[in-house]
């Protein structure tokens, strides 16, 4: 049982970071981006290329491109979705060309320990802590700093002389950094292949929609919820029927569809729709 | 058509408060009132675009308040929109064909002088021309109750008479018209009866001339 908890916490860390990245973009620009997952994967490959330095610098640059080319010029909520997808696939192709299409792993060996009856490695613990740390910082800043204030006020603050564009750029870049860090975790915990981008992009959406689009708390709650459901699904057996583990991801996407249909404001939203 | 006790609240404030009125077959009723009094909301309720209401709407004895807009359209509620209910992306001719009725479209277009623009996208027309097109489409559509939301809005003054004539030709014994307008003269020339809407309630009703001269009306409009 503890193992389920641990596994869920590990995948939740990644999912939450992806969703945070997406939500920040949505709050800052009011638009949807499908590039998040691709930014995640790029982060992983950037690390492969040049360590943390490359990851950070590269993510910042990608974040800027993300904002200026694929978000800013498009004014509906739908067009950026396509443009960011094109951007994402562009990144995927570059990665394929440069690194090859085969699966890679950031093999970082870490000792496994037995905690409360479940196995977890030190590195995985670090992952969970980092994810918690980042979430807390983002949430804190969102509520208690000027940046957060402007973000919460939205586009209307322009009429009060606020340079909302600067804030948007900053936020999107922060989102890109978070995605890059998530990429490192993906590379360490599972493996990396260029085609995983769209998958994580959609996961980010799944978490956001389940937790409530645009809600930062929703990212955390949604991420935890989704991870737990995925882990639990693996253990369910009704009579002779049990869900093959390979479908666990399809489950979250089906959940995404169900939530969109029946509770489009998220499973946990109490207040009115944010976006 | 009968509208009874309609209460609509949006975002916490009451837009329409226990609104009730009746309109008989063949009648032309005007609705006037300052901006924000709820006129377009009333039309949206009748057409079916606002469904979170309490109260009832009856058409020829049939309760329609639970029907979606396209069913209400099938039952005979037609609408001319304030913001121009023309499909800009479709051609002028297509805007008429979409009603699905077999009528001599060319003749109708000629009657309003738009035959030469039949194949052009409707977005090239002027405000007044778009309104005329909408009116002929309404005629083809043949509704039992036609809701006209500010037909002269955005229309050049010299077109108003043309519009008034068109609306007149839409009147018939089996058709009722409900017209929202600001231009009181326009309304007076067309309507049998006028309702004054103010802050979500009907505060006055009567013959156009009576209402026009009532000092309370001045008060409502000009505070």
């Amino acid at each position, binding site marked *: 049982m503890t193992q389920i908890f641990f596994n869920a916490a590990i995948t939740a860390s990644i999912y939450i970071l992806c969703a945070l990245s997406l939500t920040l973009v949505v709050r800052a620009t009011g638009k949807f981006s499908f590039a998040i997952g691709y930014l995640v994967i790029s982060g992983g490959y950037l690390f492969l290329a040049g360590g943390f330095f490359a990851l950070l610098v590269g993510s910042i640059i990608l974040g800027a491109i993300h904002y200026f080319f694929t978000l800013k010029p498009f004014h509906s909520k739908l067009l950026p979705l396509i443009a960011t997808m094109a951007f994402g696939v562009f990144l995927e192709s570059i990665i394929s060309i440069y690194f090859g299409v085969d699966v890679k792993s950031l093999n970082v060996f870490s000792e496994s320990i037995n905690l409360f009856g479940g196995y977890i490695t030190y590195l995985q613990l670090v992952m969970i802590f980092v994810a918690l740390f980042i979430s807390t910082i983002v949430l804190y800043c969102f509520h208690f700093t000027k940046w957060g204030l402007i973000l919460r006020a939205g586009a209307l603050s322009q009429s009060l002389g606020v340079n909302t564009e600067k804030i948007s750029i900053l936020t999107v870049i922060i989102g890109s950094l978070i995605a890059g860090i998530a990429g490192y975790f993906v590379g360490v915990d599972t493996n990396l292949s260029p085609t995983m981008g*769209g998958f994580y992009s959609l996961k980010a959406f799944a978490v956001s929609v389940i937790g409530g689009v645009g809600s930062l708390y929703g990212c955390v709650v949604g991420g935890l919820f989704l991870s737990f459901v995925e882990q639990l699904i693996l253990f369910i057996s009704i009579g002779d029927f049990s869900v093959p583990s390979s479908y666990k991801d399809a489950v979250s996407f089906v959940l995404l569809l169900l939530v969109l249909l029946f509770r489009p404001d998220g499973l946990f939203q109490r207040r009115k729709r944010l976006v | 058509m009968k509208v009874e006790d309609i209460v609509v609240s949006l975002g916490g404030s009451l837009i329409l408060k226990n609104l009730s009125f009746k309109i008989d077959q063949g009648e032309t009723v005007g609705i006037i009132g300052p901006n924000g009094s709820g006129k377009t909301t009333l039309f949206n309720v009748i057409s079916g675009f606002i469904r979170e209401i309490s109260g009832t709407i009856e058409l020829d004895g049939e309760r329609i308040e639970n029907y979606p807009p396209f069913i209400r359209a099938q039952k005979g509620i037609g609408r001319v929109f304030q913001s121009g209910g023309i499909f800009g992306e479709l051609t002028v001719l297509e805007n008429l064909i979409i009603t699905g009725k077999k009528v001599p479209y060319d003749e109708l277009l000629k009657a309003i002088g738009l035959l030469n623009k039949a194949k052009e996208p409707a977005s090239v027309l002027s405000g007044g021309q778009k309104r005329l097109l909408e009116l002929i489409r309404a005629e083809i559509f043949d509704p039992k109750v036609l809701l006209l939301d500010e037909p002269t809005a955005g229309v050049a003054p010299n077109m108003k008479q043309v519009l008034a004539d068109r609306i007149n030709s839409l009147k018939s014994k089996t058709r009722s018209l409900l017209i929202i307008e600001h231009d009181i003269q326009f309304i007076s020339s067309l309507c049998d009866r006028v309702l004054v809407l103010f802050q979500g309630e009907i505060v006055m009703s009567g013959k156009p001339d009576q209402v026009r001269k009532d000092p309370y009306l001045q008060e409502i409009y000009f505070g």
Partner: protein
Amino acid sequence: MTNYLLHLGSLLFIYILLAQSLNLILGAGKLFSLGHVALFGIGSYVTAIGAVDYGLDQWSLIFLSGVTSSVFASVIVFTSGRLKEEYFAVATLAFHYVVQSVFINFRTVTRGVMGIPGIPSLYDTSLDMFIFIFLVSTAGLLILKLVFNSRLTLLLRGLADSEIVASSLKIDPKIVRLKAFVISGFFCGVSGSLFAYYLKYIDPSSFALSEIMLLVTIVLIGRPGSFFGTVIASFFVILLPEAIRFVEFLQNYTSILGSLRQLIYSLILFFAIYLTREKIFGRVI
């Protein structure tokens, strides 16, 4: 050389049919369904399984593929049809991934990642195969052309322009969308079937998400909603990257042709969307 041209031609006509079916939904109806590759894949798999496991003949399978894809297309509309455009797009993406997950994981039927090889060859020469594809595709295109000229498409376009005005004219949004999707889905399935017969081997990787970009690009470039525009755009978009094979200094890179192709498509799509961004949504925001 002729074989190469026949190869290109075959693929071309398969894709034109597929693109045209998306054109109906996306171009005319402005419904951003990004799940059409999944429908295409479903058609291919139905044909592959039907041919390899059950030995059914080609005409039954082409029809069956079309019908199956239609059914799934209607699932898309039933479930997500009422969602706002951007959420609808996300829902279709989810649909895509779920379907792809089934392709990869339902190993007993779909053979998973290994794919289904050994789809029986229909004709002995490439020329005969090309003619077959050409005929079926053209038949499909003719039917689609009729649909484009029909009242259904008129209603679809009106609905895309303003759902509110359309509703006031007795148009039932649900029925119009359903019909459009069913027709579109059918031809997705048919083109998928041709694809399976052509390649004689299919696997999940042919139906990756990035393929949808190709289709969206074709529809956007060729003036959305225009039948002939899409045909011309298909020629352009599909044949262009093939030109790489002939450019001297790039010939060393044929090993990464797949990724290069994808790169070019993503750029073309980006520019297509950038240049048409005002026109697609004439009604601003």
